[in-house]
């Protein structure tokens, strides 16, 4: 792989640019439709977008809020990458988040005698496992009973919400809230069990430069915001899952089943196991999203009776971000930031211009539609590429570059 000709490198770079183009076109197309809607609401789209941009990244706090919103989206999106790559359409992010949060908050409330870092570790583990097992139900039913996972995960979402409502009104209810008119929420977790806030000390040079640009904060970037270490955990998870998908046999098998189930079966891959595993990992990631919301941001679990009251739609937005990130966990990192920014910016737009923030939900839908629709063009390109196959020598090189390592030995 060290001998790739410059020609081939250029071709690869060219293909990569082309592969991301449909995504950008989707975003632009969605924004164009949004502009039409804004004009129909007699709002100047440019002014609206400026307000959004300002609300998303205009100040230190705005940027931090964007990242805070992006954290659960990224967790879910990373999991969705595994599921969709494995050919499993997991729509259950909302339910898996709730399962993870319920397990995680229970551990954090019970294991109070342990040192803080251990509580956090156990709580995160419980969240992952709970989300994974919850998604595993759908995976198992798909693998062995051929139950459509889209439908089963949607049903499981509703079951999770009701379980949350039941538990938060019952055994998990904050003891100080007992009474007939209580608010269904858990007690607050211990301060040691909370994920620390995240901040960076800027080097003098960068701080000076930023001040020159009108930056008003202190050198302790994000010190006075709600940004927490969940962001670092999410990014680490994205890297780990990326490695898992493209650098291990586990990931290779999952992707193989997603690409072609029959071929995988002939190649001796145990297909049901891969389906369950893909679902398991996806659910675990979503479970982490849930528990990190509790440990890093809300410090308790509270319900308004609906799923979105807790998840803020991250279970669905994670799907959008995963698609927009090209179903690549690393691509999901910037994609989640973009969607976090859209959500935070929309709130600012609502305050400034009176445009309902629900516009962003509609735009997210459009992005999904445009992204999956444009895949036809990507497929056509791939077919054309396959038709003009490079000469054999180059193909061997290509194979060496693209083959997972267990076959290179």
């Amino acid at each position, binding site marked *: 792989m060290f001998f790739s000709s410059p020609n081939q490198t250029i071709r690869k770079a060219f293909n990569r640019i082309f592969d991301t183009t449909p995504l950008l076109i989707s975003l632009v197309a969605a924004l164009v439709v949004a502009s039409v809607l804004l004009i129909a609401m007699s709002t100047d789209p440019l002014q609206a977008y400026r307000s959004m941009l300002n609300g998303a990244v205009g100040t230190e706090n705005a940027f931090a809020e964007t990242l805070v919103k992006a954290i659960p989206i990224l967790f879910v999106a990373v999991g969705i990458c595994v599921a969709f790559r494995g050919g499993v359409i997991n729509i259950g992010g909302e339910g898996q988040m709730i399962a993870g949060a319920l397990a995680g908050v229970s551990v954090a409330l019970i294991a109070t005698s342990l040192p803080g870092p251990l509580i956090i570790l156990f709580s995160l583990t419980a969240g992952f496992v709970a989300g994974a097992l919850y998604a595993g139900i759908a995976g198992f039913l798909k693998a062995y009973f051929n139950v459509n996972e889209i439908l089963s995960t949607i*049903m499981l979402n509703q079951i999770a919400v009701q379980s949350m409502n039941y538990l938060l009104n019952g055994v998990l209810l904050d003891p100080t809230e007992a009474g007939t008119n209580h608010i269904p929420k858990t007690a607050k977790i211990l301060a040691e069990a909370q994920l620390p806030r995240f901040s960076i000390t800027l080097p003098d040079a960068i701080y000076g430069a930023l001040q020159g640009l009108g930056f008003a904060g202190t050198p302790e970037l994000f010190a006075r915001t709600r940004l927490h270490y969940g962001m670092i955990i999410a990014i680490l998870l994205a890297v780990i899952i990326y490695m898992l998908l493209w650098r291990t046999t586990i990931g290779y098998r999952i992707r193989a089943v997603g690409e072609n189930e029959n071929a995988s079966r002939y190649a001796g891959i145990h297909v049901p196991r891969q389906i369950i595993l893909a679902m398991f990992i996806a659910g675990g990631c979503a479970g982490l999203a849930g528990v990190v919301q509790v440990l890093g941001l809300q410090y308790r679990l509270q319900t308004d009776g609906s799923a979105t009251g807790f998840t803020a739609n991250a279970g669905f937005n994670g799907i959008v971000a995963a698609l927009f990130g090209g179903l690549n966990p690393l691509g999901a990192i910037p994609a989640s930031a973009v969607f976090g920014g859209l959500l935070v910016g929309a709130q600012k737009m609502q305050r400034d211009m009176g445009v309902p923030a629900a516009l962003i939900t*509609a735009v997210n839908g459009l992005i999904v539609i445009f992204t999956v629709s444009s895949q036809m063009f990507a497929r056509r390109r791939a077919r054309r590429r396959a038709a003009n196959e490079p000469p054999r020598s180059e193909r061997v090189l290509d194979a060496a570059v693209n083959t997972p390592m267990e076959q290179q030995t």
Partner: protein
Amino acid sequence: MIEQLLAPSVFAAAMRLATPYLFASLGEMFGQRSGVLNLGVDGTMLMGAFFGFYTVMITESLLLGVLAALITGLIMGLVTAFISVTLKAEQGISGIGIYLFGLGMSELLYQRLIGTPKSVSGFSNIYIPGLSDIEFLGIGEIFFRHNLLVYVAFALVPVSAFILNRTPFGLMIRAAGQNPQAADAMGVNVTRVRYITVMIGGMMAGLAGASLSIALLKVFQQNLTSGLGFIAVALVYFGRWRPLGILIGAMLFSVVQAIQLQISAIGIDIPSEFAVMLPYVITIIALVFASKRMEKPTALTKPFERGES
């Protein structure tokens, strides 16, 4: 207590609650039988519910309200068909896009055009002369004292079965979903059949939404359906792609729902969460059994491509 839970009024409520499921599921069934899974039903329902409601609020004409919901559904169906049939997008995912669009768009329109919770007088109940007075087993109250849309929804069950099983168009639908290549070879325009079924499905989803906003609840609010459209999709699987099966599924769902409402109304000390949860659990179990038998349209979710098999 049991008497209170099984009172005629509970079953009458179940009939009304079944209405949106019936409209949406029967419509979805046509699409699925022709090979298209439309997961965006909930989004289409929300749009239909909004436009139906808004039209009634402005014009005070129920007919125009129903018409608005049908047209909204038709447009959403056309877009869905374009995405799934022409662009051949992955149906499971594009449906989520349509759902999110409908969810956001209906809320946006609601906040912009209505703003605060308002209600309309909507459809009133029609007592079928003679039949509505039957006291025996509460039959009159259960079956014959409903609004027009309830009667229409139940009438659509045999009508759908007839269209699907006894007409040439029904045969084309089934052929397009079972073996599109063969259907194409026999001169059936698979693409056109699928467009039509998805548009029918859209119209019925729009009507399902309106049956909520101008007949059953008579209000519109954000996320009015709260996922009802997804259950409607599951009911198609549950009912094994047959109108009668869908009717059974919808009734099962709505009876449980009506009993649950009655439980909270008379204040029995059962956690209502379990009652709310029950239909979803039943659906999952039913899906396990439904999928064992191979009755699913073979070409479901598979885009049709001429010359490929």
